[in-house]
């Protein structure tokens, strides 16, 4: 089986988890935590196999085109769900994660042009740059999951404020649990992104001309936004609804920044040998 076939099956498992959860909610029941967790875990393993095969084929971390970026982000988000899902027993979080993973995985598979061309020699054979890129994408996984928990926090706040407690609002986790998990995901994501930038900075200091300034500004801007959010949350100045909205808005900005960053990468002349101009996979 090819890597794409493994990834198709993984995406379909995520989709089944999402559809089963939707079916349960539509019937007024709670999605099965165990079932959704198993489907996501199954999808995760198969996606790992697919990404591994792709990695072996390209001889490095599979982050060479939009398809691979989406797959890696979905895999990262699922990783964080599987870590947090054990202690944070919420079938609704699993349901949203299945939805996110299915959308990222299947949409990237369904658009052939995203995987038609792959940038060769992306990291110039430098494992540190590859590590930097992987960390950056991994932090996006944490932030993607944070966006989900922040969205759930908004729903829970809305339900409590407006006294709409029945239906599937009743399946949402407690408010303080959502706040706690969101704060932790923010801290983990920010720490990963900081580590990623630190690794990238070492390379950038030695060869500043190789990094596109627009890309650098975007990356640092997103990192700074998450740092400020973390700081304000720690100080108690950004809480509840405003905290949730901040997490969602910053992630949307981070996603939107991927476009300009990607195009800035294309604008640079290719270098056949040595380190490429890529300081990041973003």
């Amino acid at each position: 089986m090819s890597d794409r076939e493994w990834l198709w099956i993984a995406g379909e498992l995520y989709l089944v988890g999402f559809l089963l959860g939707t079916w349960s909610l539509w019937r007024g029941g709670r999605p099965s935590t165990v079932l959704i967790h198993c489907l996501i875990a199954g999808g995760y393993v198969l996606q790992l196999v697919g990404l591994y095969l792709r990695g072996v084929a390209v001889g490095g971390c599979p982050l060479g085109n939009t398809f691979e970026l989406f797959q890696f982000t979905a895999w990262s988000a699922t990783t964080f769900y599987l870590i947090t899902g054990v202690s944070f027993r919420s079938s609704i979080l699993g349901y949203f994660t299945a939805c996110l993973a299915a959308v990222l995985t299947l949409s990237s598979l369904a658009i052939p042009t995203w995987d038609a061309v792959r940038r060769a020699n992306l990291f110039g054979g430098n494992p540190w740059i590859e590590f930097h890129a992987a960390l950056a994408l991994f932090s996006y996984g944490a932030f993607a999951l944070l966006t989900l928990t922040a969205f759930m926090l908004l729903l829970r706040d809305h339900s409590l404020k407006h006294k709409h407690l029945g239906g599937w609002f009743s399946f949402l986790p407690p408010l303080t649990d959502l706040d706690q998990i969101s704060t932790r995901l923010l801290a983990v994501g920010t720490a990963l992104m900081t580590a990623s930038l630190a690794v990238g900075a070492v390379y950038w200091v030695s060869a500043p001309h190789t990094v596109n300034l627009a890309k650098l500004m975007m990356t640092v801007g997103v990192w700074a936004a998450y740092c400020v959010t973390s700081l304000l949350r720690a100080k108690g100045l950004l809480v509840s609804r405003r905290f949730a909205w901040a997490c969602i808005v910053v992630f949307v900005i981070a996603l939107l920044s991927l476009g300009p960053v990607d195009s800035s990468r294309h604008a640079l002349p290719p270098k056949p040998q040595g380190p490429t101009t890529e300081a990041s996979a973003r």
Partner: protein
Amino acid sequence: MTLVATPPQPSLAATVQQTLFVLGATHHRTPIQVREKLSLDPGALAALHETLSTIEGLDEFTMLSTCNRTEFYGVASSADTVPRLRRAFCERQNFSETEFTRYALQLEGPRALQHLFEVASGLDSQLVGETEIFGQLKDAYAAAHARRSTGPILNRVFQKAFQAAKHVRTHTAITEGQVSVANVAVELARDIFGQLNRTRVLLLGAGEIGEKTAKAFQSRGVTSLSVSSRRLGRAMELASELRAFALPFWLAPAKLPEFDIVVCATAAPSTVVATAAVAAAMHRRAAQPLFLIDLALPRDVEPPVADLPNVYLYNLDDLATIAEANRHSREAEVAKCRELLRNRSETLWSHLRPRLESRSAA
């Protein structure tokens, strides 16, 4: 389920000498003043057990006595066993047998089985879906088992009833949503804080409804409770009863930031919790939500408090509306539960009937 004071099913009584039965009086047909006369305390239960053990043909029996029902579940091997039991019970309670017959519920065979399953599942309870009856039934069975008044039939019947009740609770929404104001408040607190064992609760006012709510919180794990009332003596008295702290009323606004849940139930003619006081409290605990439960009439908390971020305010009407909605939801589940229980009781009866027949033949 419509309970009718019916005579024994003629078909079963005629063909099977030994049968399963239930005899008793429940809240469906029996007014509270009669139920009071029929209820049995532990001492009376023990004494009655001695009496019933001597009744000929009463092979197995279990007695259940709660505030809403007094029931006898048993296995009888002669047609006049149940009348004898009824007579013995009425004599013990000094209650007219004729009057008891007017209120009594008497079912046999599969209907008795279905009834037991519904009792265990809380379907027959006054508050449909309540789970307290499950524990009471377990205690009743355990007591009977310890006194050796149960046998192979009742042992199996009760075990299956407990299994059926658990099945129904797991696979339907019959127990979901609280139906009393105090429990709705506790459930809302759990929606906000999750586990309540680390939350700090302040009770403003030392009246009955506040006390009930405070007890409901304590039953769900709250250990830090403070009571504040205009009459410090009354606050100290209630605090002592609830093993809580007493707080002078004038100090309560300043201490507000230290509490996660505030239950307001004073008899004050105007509001006692001002928006400015809550806003000031939230300034000091911005990251932690504050849950205000206003059970007073007139209200204790200024309504604009609800607009503050991370503050959740519920008044008596809000809680009553939720309780009513939950009650309707539970009632909507009853038919589904009955169907599940009927399938199980019919299967069990198909296994029990040959055993009852073979035992009677022997």
